């Protein structure tokens, strides 16, 4: 494989982390808990498979008629006083948000979890202009204090132990060290309470956008998004254009599927739909509500019909949670906004196939992700297709020669037999170089023994037998 900087970094970090047994067991333990909860909640469904199929069909309809749904969505939002903005790329989205923030002369901004915000590097842009931005989701708050990107797009601080979190809080907030998750949570609660009450602007993401009624839907457990959308005078929601669901009642299916697949809860703590700023006769809520619709190459992905279903994703994280690659290399190794299988599928579309194709090769194609996905995205086959597309576009010359030669060998059984005989001789001398740099099988033998060519191959056995 030709090596790009992103690929080199991936390999380097994967090498370090796969050797880190403490990290491996931390992630496995955390995800084991998830798995048990998910299985028990999945079992409550009367028919999970039909639910999955219907969810896939609803999303299929949403994406394959996105132009009409999106226009409806915007029109319905605007009818009730929401300002809808359209951003073709990250820069435009940042500029739209910065313009609102500048105009309000905001002193403090509170954010609930916004993965699209990570995608467009919103915090950096706001901070560069001197605005204070506070992440309110506990996990996001922790990684923000540590100046790290989220480790997992649902569980951002999953890689940290309570000890590490306590240290971070002690250093950044001056709190007394503690190893109680409860106390740590309360420290964050106290700090963030102050922020909510004073913030001028709340920024949120959106898990779904309902075309029929013109609403965004936000799923969360902590109540931080509820507060973010209740107290500040201005609420800005940033959402990818693919988040659309056609009908209000589609949520009756999607909310429990998201909760179950994503967190092992039938419903997460708060599932809230926002259809506008404070309406006449209402007592509170923001005076202004802005929805920023972000394309940022989603239409590029859409133009590939084979992989278009990747836009069905509701970012539940189930595919990460079952992914043996994710469990061993961890979330930061990907170097992407969206980690795990879905990240490996969409990143090449969003950020360039040649630069990010290594992610499609970094998979055993086991299909665990596809089986787990509640909206039936054909994840692992998309990785296979991306490999094909990347190679068709730009083959690696030595691989091409090797596979040509191999094809020739495989098509000439006599040569193949001869090859095996040579292998039998070769393996006598192999111990001399085994697992060293000059071992032609080094990639295999650095950690494993090589299988031996049998004294009698199958075809030899067959010939002798007749």
């Amino acid at each position, binding site marked *: *494989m030709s090596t790009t900087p992103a690929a080199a970094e991936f390999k380097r970090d994967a090498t370090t982390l796969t050797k880190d047994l403490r990290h491996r067991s931390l992630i496995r333990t955390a995800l084991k808990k998830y798995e048990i909860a998910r299985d028990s909640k999945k079992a409550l469904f009367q028919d999970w498979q039909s639910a999955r199929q219907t969810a896939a069909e609803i999303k299929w309809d949403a994406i394959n008629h996105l132009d009409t749904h999106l226009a409806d969505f915007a029109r319905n939002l605007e009818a009730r006083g929401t300002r809808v903005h359209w951003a073709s790329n990250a820069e435009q989205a940042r500029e739209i948000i910065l313009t609102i923030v500048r105009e309000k002369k905001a002193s403090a901004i509170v954010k609930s979890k916004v993965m699209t915000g990570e995608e467009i590097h919103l915090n950096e842009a706001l901070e560069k202009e001197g605005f204070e931005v506070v992440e309110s989701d506990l996990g996001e708050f922790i990684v923000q204090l540590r100046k790290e990107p989220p480790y997992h797009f649902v569980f951002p601080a999953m890689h940290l132990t309570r000890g590490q979190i306590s240290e971070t809080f002690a250093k950044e907030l001056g709190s007394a060290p503690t190893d109680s998750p409860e106390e740590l949570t309360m420290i964050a609660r106290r700090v963030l309470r102050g922020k909510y009450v004073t913030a001028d602007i709340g920024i949120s993401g959106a898990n779904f956008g309902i075309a029929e009624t013109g609403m965004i839907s936000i799923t969360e457990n902590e109540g931080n998004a509820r507060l973010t959308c209740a107290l500040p005078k201005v609420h800005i929601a940033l959402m990818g254009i693919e988040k659309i669901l056609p009908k209000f009642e589609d949520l009756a299916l999607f909310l429990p599927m998201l909760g179950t697949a994503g967190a092992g809860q039938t419903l997460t703590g708060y599932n809230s739909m926002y259809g506008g700023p404070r309406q006449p006769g209402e007592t509170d809520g923001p005076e202004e509500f802005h929805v920023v619709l972000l394309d940022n190459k989603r239409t590029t992905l859409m133009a590939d019909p084979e992989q278009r279903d990747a836009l069905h994703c509701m970012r539940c994280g189930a595919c990460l949670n079952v992914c*043996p690659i994710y469990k*061993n290399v961890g979330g930061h190794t990907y170097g992407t906004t969206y980690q795990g299988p879905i990240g490996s599928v969409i990143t090449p579309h969003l950020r360039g196939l040649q630069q990010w194709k290594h992610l499609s090769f970094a998979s055993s194609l086991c299909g*665990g992700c596809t089986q787990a996905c509640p909206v039936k995205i054909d994840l692992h086959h998309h990785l296979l297709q991306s490999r094909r597309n990347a190679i068709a576009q730009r083959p690696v010359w030595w691989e091409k020669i090797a596979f040509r030669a191999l094809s020739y060998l*495989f098509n000439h059984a006599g040569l193949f037999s001869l090859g095996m005989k040579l292998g039998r001789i070769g393996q006598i001398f192999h111990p001399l170089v085994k697992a060293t740099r000059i071992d032609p099988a080094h990639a*295999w033998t650095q950690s494993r023994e090589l*299988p031996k060519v049998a004294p009698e191959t199958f*075809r030899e056995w067959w010939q002798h037998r007749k």
Partner: protein
Amino acid sequence: MKITLFIPCFIDACFPKVGASAVEIFERLGHTIEYPQELTCCGQPAFNSGYWDETREVADKVLVRLKHSEVVVIVSGSCGAMIKNFYPQLYAGTGQEAAAKALAAKTYEFTDFLVSKLGVTDLGARFPHRVTFHDGCHGLRELGIKKQPRQLLAHVQGLELIEMSEAETCCGFGGTFSAKFPMISSAMGENKIGSALETGAEYIVSNDSSCLMHQQGLIDRQKKPLRTLHIAEILNTR
């Protein structure tokens, strides 16, 4: 029935007993075996690496040679999935698409063939050992094979099957992935072997020798008290 046996390249070279066991089992059941010696490989390594033109060079020959076979049986879930699921994709929109689909329809993985097609679950085998079963991902998820090998093992005298906690988790072989990302592949394999060891089994049994080749390589290097064995070899014991 005349059964055409497709022997994948690495089974031919390194695990001939797997193929030989399959031959003996089918013959005992009264079937005739045909072994097309000019076929060596299904083309999966090139396919999974993105080289589909090169894959077709190999697969073309398979399509032609197996055209008139009655049924084709493969002793590997992974190569079975290649022919059953991926050949039709490889040839989608080409003149050979129909041929690929026809071949896919008459191709079976070994345990699936025994149980679903021949209706045999008891082969009179005897293997007095504790074993755990590894579901190869391609057999499990591409072909939906889960019950069949367990039904076969349940009838093996003296055999005690203890399921491991992560039976359905990939062992990390993944074909060329194991050489492109050996560190990830090996870490995954270590987890797998760890969970097999927890069962106290003497053998990891599977219907896929490719996974076992990787696992055995790790076991040997780390000197773990475990062995790997293809299910055909167990079913061929007396």
